[in-house]
């Protein structure tokens, strides 16, 4: 059963990494949907 719990933990970890990573890589909605002349944050 250890591999099962490890897999579930990995799912959560990958989700957080994906969210942070995509934001960081410039894929946040605000980055994608605003022009360069808009100052974000």
């Amino acid at each position, binding site marked *: 059963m250890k591999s*099962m719990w*490890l*897999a*579930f933990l*990995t799912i959560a970890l990958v989700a957080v990494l994906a969210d942070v990573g995509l934001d960081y890589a410039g894929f946040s909605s605000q980055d*994608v*949907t*605003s022009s360069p002349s808009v100052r974000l944050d």
Partner: protein
Amino acid sequence: MTPRTFLSLIAMLALMAVPLSPATAQDAPVIDRSATGGATTLEDILLRQQGIKVDNTYRRDATGNPELAAPIQDQLGTLGGVSQSEDWQALRYNTADVTVSSRVPAAEVIMQDSGMAWQKFRSGPLLTYGGWLLAGMLGLLVLFYLVRGRIRIDGELSGRKILRFPAVERFAHWLLAGSFVVLGITGLIQLFGRYFIIPLIGHETYAPVAIAGKWVHNNVSWAFMVGLVLVTVFWIAHNIPNKHDLKWLAVGGGLFSKGVHPPAKKFNAGQKLIFWAVIVLGFSISASGLSLLFPFELPMFAVTFEKLNALGLPQLIGLGELPTTLAPHAEMQLAQLWHAIVAFLFIAIIFAHIYLGSVGMQGAFDAMGSGEVDEQWAKEHHGLWLAEVKAKSAKSATPAE
């Protein structure tokens, strides 16, 4: 599976989304518009009111001609050869050269007309048939349980354990399965929430649920894709059909009768069907999901329709040629519907899998739990595989001289 088979499978499935796309020009009635100088006639309007498609190229292409403009000092010369209605038509059919300051993809699309049809299909047939499909499958499983009961191990437990899936394979399975269940639940909440959850708990309570569900659905998708690739790599070799599969299918795998145990290798024909369904539906749902996750960046329907048209498949079943110019929004709408249709099929199939892998069959869960099954279980359900494993271990256990 070669990429080509994969593509054509997707394409075949894609055909189901077709009734939504606008009818083709060929089946439209021919209308004489000389009396209006080529503009819309009363006949056009009447046909439209009856819901009959009219080839709209007479309007779509009537976007003026600057070459024929009157000299600037003449009457209407300032229009530059394009009347206001012609300007409007260009906007209406997305051929105008629009410049917007927003960087949002597809922001230059001022009008698109497939939104209503999409919304109606999404909140109508999609929900109705999809919901009944899932309910029907659950009903069938309950019925199966009532009639057949839990499939028990017929013989005596041997007490000897044999390794069925090593830890990495179990990890891959649970990466796929765990993410699938989470995606299924959050996806269904997004789809059914407005109609079934808001009336129960109200808008204020539903809003954070929907927002959290969306976050989870978007981000958990990656684990699903990784799990899918791993499972494909680990198990594809064991899922190539062989001669035992036909025999297995001929007796319904022994699922419906006690004491019947057709021989099978590592995976029986039923499991192979599940495996290939997971692969085909899994990759298709991933493709449409990515298309939705990066709005307007990864359109895939116009290109798919083009390939299908070239193969002649839609023509073969009387649909005529599928549209190959789709507004960016139409691409998104089709991706949404396709994603949901595949999801319903996928969930229905997985219901059966989860049932058999847990309560439905004694001893099955161990294969994915501890990874080890009792030899008697293996003998009954995967006799040829057990023999193979035993032969191998006997060979390696022969003491050196």
